């Protein structure tokens, strides 16, 4: 029933229904109640219907209330400052795609600022105004990359809201326990019940929550039911041990090496190889060591490689995949896996007590260098070994760093991930200073936001050089976009000199100067906007405009 209920009054109801029937069939066929057939019948029907319509409307009463929803849980976080709330509404209102692919001009791309805004709002622990939750959930629905931060910010009321609207069901999936509250982790009985009877997603969430607090307890809980879990579930559960991985997990993982599922075995081996003190790591060290030796036969020390001749059963049990992908030699495939899984700490002892830097500098015989260094890169990333990463990255200003050397840009980006943020920024800044921006996009992506001062300046200088070289700015649109989002807003004032349209040199692309000025204007505008946006989130002012009119009272 869409409209309020009509009072129940059976005789009147019947009279009305008879009027409707007569109107539907026509007075020539059906004489309406209370009138004579003939010429006057339609007018009489309309008179009666008018009276009846107004009578029915005037007599409307409210409907019976349905079961009211459970109240939403309280959000105890402080409310967002008013200015920040308005800013958020504006950022959320700026949907991508509305621009229709038009040239961007000098105005900032607001929606791209949402991730930074959300991260800062979450850092400060603010709660959103409730009426903004639908827009926030819609934004998170459209952009999966925003979901974790958006849902954290949206808080408990968003989960409550998502239960009422199927469009936002993703918020329930993304929330631990499908939106149901996790049991108190101090209550073993509750934990056992959820673990034994819960849905898969609930159990994964429970395991992750316990793992975050007590890694041991999570592993013990898992081992109680390990043998009876399905293969796909075992894989997911095993993966949740990645968090807080430690030597005490070794025994459990070692057992998993004998698992029925190949994927479970491979994951167990991968986790074990990330524990340099594990028995698996030691076995791998022996196998890899047998393939690599110092070779003194030439003009100086070099590394000689003798790849394995077979992949035996114990190797396979330790996670080595026997079948090489198409186009790769079996022996180099096995060799790569052995080196990748061997603890990096075993190499100095094997190679004459050299430091990682010295080892990486050694020549490698018979074209094995690419294979060996690539495997070391993977090992450094997996074992998060900063010293090896530094050695493999080399100097950012080295000539081969810019071209396709032994270590690809993708590998470099991963290696950079093992370094601290300051060191990372410094290395990328050095790289850009030497090699320019054309290869830098991937590397910039792993740098911490906002960019450290030396990195930011290196990027701006390189953009300036690119402009002076006469190319168009859209060749650098990727880096420009990153700079808008990642440059420290405090740098904005340093860019003022770049905003003017320069005189066009003779060899420059036509009109490029104007487009560059436009691009730099957008950069500066965006930085200013970010500065304003971040400062709004700093203010701890009261959130209501409550003291402007103290003489007015709420009725």
């Amino acid at each position, binding site marked *: 029933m869409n409209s309020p209920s009509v009072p129940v009054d059976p005789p009147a109801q019947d009279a009305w229904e008879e009027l*409707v029937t007569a109107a539907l069939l026509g007075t020539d*066929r059906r004489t309406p109640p209370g009138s004579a057939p003939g010429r006057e*019948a339609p007018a009489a029907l309309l008179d009666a219907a*008018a009276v009846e319509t107004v009578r029915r409307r005037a007599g409307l*009463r409210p409907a019976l209330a349905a079961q009211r929803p459970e109240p939403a849980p309280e959000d105890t976080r402080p409310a967002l400052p008013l200015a920040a709330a308005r800013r958020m509404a504006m950022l959320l209102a700026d949907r991508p795609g509305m621009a229709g692919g038009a040239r961007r001009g000098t105005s900032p791309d607001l929606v791209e600022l949402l991730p930074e805004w959300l991260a800062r709002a979450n850092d400060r622990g603010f709660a959103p105004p409730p009426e903004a939750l*639908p827009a926030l959930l819609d934004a998170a629905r459209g952009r999966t990359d925003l979901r974790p931060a958006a849902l954290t910010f949206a808080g408990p009321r968003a989960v409550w809201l998502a239960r009422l609207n199927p469009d936002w069901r993703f918020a329930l999936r993304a929330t631990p326990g499908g939106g149901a509250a996790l049991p108190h982790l101090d209550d073993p009985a509750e934990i056992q019940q959820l673990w034994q009877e819960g849905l898969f997603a609930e159990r994964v969430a429970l395991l992750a929550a316990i793992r975050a607090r007590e890694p041991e307890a999570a592993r013990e809980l898992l081992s109680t039911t390990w043998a009876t879990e399905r293969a796909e579930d075992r894989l997911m559960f095993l993966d949740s041990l990645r968090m807080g991985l430690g030597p005490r997990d070794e025994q459990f993982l070692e057992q998993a090496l004998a698992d029925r599922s190949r994927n479970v075995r491979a994951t167990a081996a991968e986790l074990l190889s990330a524990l340099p003190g594990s028995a698996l790591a030691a076995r791998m060290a022996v196998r890899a060591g047998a393939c690599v030796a110092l070779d003194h036969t030439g003009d100086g020390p070099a590394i000689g490689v003798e790849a394995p001749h077979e992949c035996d059963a114990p190797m396979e049990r330790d996670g080595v995949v026997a079948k090489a992908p198409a186009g790769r030699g079996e022996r180099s495939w096995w060799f790569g896996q052995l080196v990748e899984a061997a603890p990096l700490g075993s190499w100095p002892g094997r190679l004459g007590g050299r430091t990682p830097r010295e080892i990486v500098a050694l020549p490698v015989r018979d074209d094995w260098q690419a294979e060996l260094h690539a495997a070391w890169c993977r090992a450094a990333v997996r074992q998060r070994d900063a010293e090896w990463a530094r050695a493999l990255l080399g100097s950012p200003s080295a000539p081969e760093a810019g071209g396709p050397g032994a270590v690809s840009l993708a590998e470099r980006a991963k290696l950079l991930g093992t370094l601290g943020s300051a060191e990372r920024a410094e290395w990328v800044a050095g790289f850009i200073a030497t090699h320019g921006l054309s290869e830098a996009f991937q590397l910039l992506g792993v740098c911490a936001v906002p960019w450290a001062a030396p990195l930011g300046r290196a990027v701006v200088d390189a953009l300036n050089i690119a402009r002076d070289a006469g190319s168009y700015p859209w060749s650098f649109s990727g880096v420009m976009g990153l700079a808008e989002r990642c440059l420290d807003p405090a740098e904005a004032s340093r860019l003022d000199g770049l905003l003017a349209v320069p005189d066009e040199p003779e060899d420059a692309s036509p009109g490029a100067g104007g487009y560059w000025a436009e691009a730099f204007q957008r950069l500066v505008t965006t930085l200013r906007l970010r500065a304003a946006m971040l400062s709004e989130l700093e203010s701890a002012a009261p959130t209501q405009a409550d003291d*402007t009119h103290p003489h007015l009272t*709420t009725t």
Partner: protein
Amino acid sequence: MTQQGVRWTADQVLALAPDAASRKAGSKLGAAGPWSESGSADEGTVWGLCKGSGSKPYQTVIDIADAAGPAYKCSCPSRKFPCKHALGLLLLWAGGDGAVPPGQPPDWAEQWIKGRRQRAEEKRTAGASGSAPGSADPEAARRRAERRAVRVTAGATELEQRLTDLLRGGLAGAEQAGYGLWEETAARMVDAQAPGLAARVQELGAIPASGPGWPLRLLEECALLHLLDQGWLRREALPDGLADTVRSRIGLPASADGPPLRDRWLVLAQYDTADVKLTTRRIWLHGADSGRTALLLSYGAAGRAPELTLPVGLALEAELTAYPGAGQLRASLGEQFAPPAPAAIRPPGITTTEATARYGEALRDDPWLDSVPVTLDRVIPTPDGDSWQLADTDTDTALPLTPAARARPGLWRLVALSGGAPVKVFGECGHRGFTPLTAWPRGTGEAVQLY
């Protein structure tokens, strides 16, 4: 009035935008980047230069002191009104972080403002001296009105004949006839200078396709149309108030001639409905002292925002003049004594039972009324199958939402605001259900627009 007192919020500024694209373009210009030499003066003007794609920046100036709403001038070629530059500048000014410092307007801005003020002054003195334009020859006006009444009578008589024919043959036939029949009849009513009849006839055409129960709704609307025809044809016999109501429902022009009522008017809601030719803006006001509810209507040509804009949640000290007609809430905005300013006023609320009773009572004065404005106190938005209702907190009664209100994003803002707890909701309550327009959270929070 100090400038600080009238500084607007970004929401208020964005409410001025003629369409969504302008809102977006304007919010992008609401940052310091493209602006230079911007400033504002205490008497309510804002100006600035905006760097566009050309070499010469656009000159934008806005007069926000005018009681009839802000006025804009911009040297850009856009036909949007206000243009994105005006919106952006107002946003920058509303942001209040020193990007629009107080100062002396430059010559180009000063000239325009002066011109405006001067014309406004002349208009005021002309208005005060008496004779309103158009009423120059009362005899001619009377003859015009008589001629029009004759045509409306002919139209109403013709419409009666068509309704009678329809009922004789049966509504089932109307389903096959489709829109064509009604389109033609509506055009005849336009010729008869009865736009109110024309609009109602037009709506009849959509009913047969409106889903189950359409014969019932079609009979209701036909009967009310018949009632309006009969009201017109026998208007001499009606009491004055009801006769005025019939005239207004037929669509005859009327002027607001009631006594002016001065009050602090809280802006309860503002929303636009658009058809092919016209955008209609409805603004609901609540008088803080008189307790009266009043409706302001403002029109804009298709694609243009109506000129009058009053931000929801603000209150303005002003005089309102009622239009004639029993049970008519429409008024016209007279003199404004102070611009809209934030206020902590909330309208008093009633229960759902009282709300339906109020609609019933209002039908006595105006049987063609589709809904009445009410503020519901302490209601909880509650899901009811596929539908939603506003349920009283303390009793087991509830008002269902209209199908249109259920499909609007405002519903979810209302649900989120409530979080299962009681809220105060202003909206329109009628035979189709309740349409929420504005809500207030518990405590002291600001009004939240739902339309």
